[in-house]
């Protein structure tokens, strides 16, 4: 079946080719959301799509406030555009609904552990603004079983949530290694976790970050280990609607701003006007300068962002780091200067 969005894009392409590019603007296809930036400014609110609750990424505190790695990115964008990290409406989205909510114009930005893949990039009318977290599929095992490597799992029963690429990745991995395993499929993470905890499965496979979250929800997290192998590439990042390059660029440079701020050791404290380091404050202003003209942001937008959420490291450590229940290490998500692969283009 031809997908509707692909069809509409093909139609537009054909029309544009036949009649010249001017037609597209005149036609006003998706005119309402031609400039997400203007929409956001007009309503003085960012509408940000997040997951329905994933420990460390998007979670609600007792007072009902959202927090987490994905949530902080929404806050960073609101701080950059509207000067206030609180000006966000959060929309919880399931894995199935997330991209349609974006293409239907229900949200301005999707910040919900979504993997950037070629088919998603090309088949759906989406743009991935960058990579905020390098994830990969892993395995959670019972410590008492003494496993250290996924390659020791011959004969294992494996819990997996259906409807994602997870089972396919694992099946391919074990077939490549000549191993025989059995999959037990569950509709959601809660059921899979329960089955794993009861011993129905020997291991539970999902993205490593999600496994860390699941592990933190088990009765005694220390009795469960995440095995060393990562068997797939899952680059997660914020997603925007296709056809609005200005908005995509803005989102991209907010992300890169957070990463570059870590690399340049810019923090809320170090860029503080009174108590900070004037050189660092100057650097933050310099980093932000190109965006001021292009997006009409305030001169000190990056400083506002740092005050709201901190730099990349602050966001990571606060939500996912070793002091949190998830206890994730930076690993590949460390800066390229520190043995990781996190690399943002320069800001000048």
């Amino acid at each position, binding site marked *: 079946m031809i997908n509707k969005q692909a069809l509409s894009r093909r139609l537009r392409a054909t029309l544009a080719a036949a009649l010249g590019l001017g037609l597209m603007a005149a036609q006003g296809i998706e005119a309402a959301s031609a400039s997400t930036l203007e929409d956001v400014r007009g309503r003085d609110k960012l509408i940000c799509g997040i997951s329905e609750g994933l420990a460390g990424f998007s979670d609600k505190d007792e007072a009902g406030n959202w927090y987490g790695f994905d949530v902080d990115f929404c806050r960073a964008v609101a701080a950059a555009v509207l000067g206030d990290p609180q000006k966000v409406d959060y929309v919880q989205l399931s894995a199935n609904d997330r991209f349609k909510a974006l293409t239907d114009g229900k949200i301005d930005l999707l910040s919900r552990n979504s993997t950037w893949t070629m088919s998603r990039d090309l088949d759906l009318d989406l743009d991935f603004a960058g990579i905020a977290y390098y994830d990969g599929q892993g395995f959670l095992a*019972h*410590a*008492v*079983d*003494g*496993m*250290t*490597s996924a*390659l*020791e*799992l*011959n*004969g*294992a*029963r494996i819990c997996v949530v259906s409807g994602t690429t997870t089972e396919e990745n694992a099946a391919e991995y074990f077939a490549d290694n000549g191993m025989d395993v059995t999959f037990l499929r569950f509709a959601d993470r809660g059921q899979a976790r329960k089955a794993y*905890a*009861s*011993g*129905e499965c*020997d*291991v539970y496979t999902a993205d490593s970050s999600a496994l860390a979250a699941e592990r933190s929800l*088990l*009765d*005694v997290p*220390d*009795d469960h280990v995440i*095995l*060393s*192998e*990562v068997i797939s590439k899952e680059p997660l990042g914020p997603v925007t609607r296709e056809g609005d390059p200005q908005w995509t660029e803005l989102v991209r440079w907010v992300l890169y701003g957070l990463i570059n701020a870590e690399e340049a050791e810019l923090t809320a404290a170090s860029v503080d006007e009174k108590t900070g380091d004037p050189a660092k404050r100057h650097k933050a202003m310099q980093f932000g300068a190109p965006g001021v003209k292009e997006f009409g942001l305030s001169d000190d937008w990056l400083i506002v962002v740092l005050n709201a959420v901190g730099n990349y490291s602050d966001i990571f450590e606060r939500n996912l780091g070793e002091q949190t229940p998830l206890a994730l290490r930076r690993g590949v998500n460390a800066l390229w200067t520190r043995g990781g692969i996190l690399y943002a283009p320069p800001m000048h």
Partner: protein
Amino acid sequence: MNRSIVLFAGLRAIVLVIVAACASPVFAQTRLSSQDLAAVRVNIVDLLANEPNLPLPVRQRQEALATYYSEQNGDLLWLGQERAPAFIEWLRSAADDGLDPASYPADQLVSLNEAVPVTDARGRAIIELHFSAAFLEYASDLKVGRFLPRKVDPNFFLQKREIDQVAALDQLAAAENLDQFFISWQPSAPEYAALRVALSDYRALLANGGWPTVPLGDSLKPGMTDPRVPALRARLAVTDGASPVAPPGAEDVYDDELVAVVRSFQKRHGLDVDGIAGKATIVAMNVPVEDRIEEIVVAMERWRWMPESLGSKYVMVNIAGFELKRVSDGKVEEKMAVVVGKPYHRTPVFSDEIRYLEFNPYWNVPAGIAIKEELPKLKKNPAARAAAGFEAVQGDKVYSLTSINWNRYGPGNFPFQIRQRPGPNNALGRVKYMFPNQFNVYLHDTPAKSLFSRSDRAFSHGCVRLSRPLEFAPPVLAAGGVSGWNMARVNSVIASGKRTVVNLEKPLPVHITYFTAWVDQGVPNFRADVYDQDEKLIAALGGKSIAW
């Protein structure tokens, strides 16, 4: 959900609570009556025969466990026995054997034991099986090495062994106690035991803060005065017995006593023994104690990969040490320098048996070398190669190199075998020691004698070149059950210039190894990681997935 899943769920839930309560739980013995034990054993046999949902480590060893526990005297090994607390202690001190305590579920096993009521025979049966599975894992790791992904480096696993699991369980049952079992079970080579002691010594050095570094700079020559001498003295006082206190007033003098210590340091690190503290020597001194500990750990791991018995007489080559040893009944009869493969033509690690010697050998140039290295020379100047003793063979026919138009040939179109006739320039020299193998690797003489004087000797295409090839022949032949060979006879055969093959009556084991750490008469020796094998192995043992 079937019954056993409920059972495991219950077990696991209780385990969780108990582990949470104490950081390093102590194993508590539970008293079981003989009736209780009999009931447990019945349950074990039943579980192993009929239960599809056993824990993974038990399922993976189900056959061996079923065999053991159904035996006439397949007594319970853990419940109601003294072994369990001792086993927990072995797991917790796995680091003494260079293993990683974090890889074994000591705490979880303790909690498991406490979690199940004595009266729950089926639950107790699961505990017994969990202990036996963990025991088999540890026994395997200790004896034949830890699990490693094959993809890390296929060269690690040429002859990966497996333990006989039923035999391990039987031996454990028969052993007086667990300590006695493990002491007889661990690798029996004295080299392993010596490394185990060195590991403990170097860990103690680490606990004391390791050693200070020596600043790099101009080479320190005997008799010189230099402000770095106190640092040199302090460094060598930690590991090499240098006197920590200098003669008063001569603190900066590189005196004879310190020179002697530097020479012994150089010797045990495979450096040029010249008493000059130059760059290579100081760099070796500045390798931190943590790295030396890792080298010892990987050496112990490699000893686990060695065959159970090396043979009463054998030859052992250490690639990283550029050295060959001939051993007879535990005694090193001879050591000689060897040249091994360069990093892009690694000498592989494996064990085999020398079956024959060939005096005045032809060198049959391997096809790859013939096309890559010989053909360009033949195109340029075939007469020069002919003068060096080379000829071309096709089928039964032997051709002079100058009779062929080499420009007509190239990769994919090369019908000849190139070989070099016996003689003084032959690449294999005057003798080769053959142990036919898939790698086409053997020991041989070489005309390039100058390389033996270098301290770093990785130059060959993979074969092992001997520094005293002819002197090696009589003892190898004698060890191989061939009598009547002395140097005079070897020399006369060489002088004949004729290709002469002598078969051994009894094949002589030869072990090609890669050790960057060993202990020689109580002295720890370290060598450079010439093939970067340590680095990979350390990463793999640390559970890192690495792409190389």
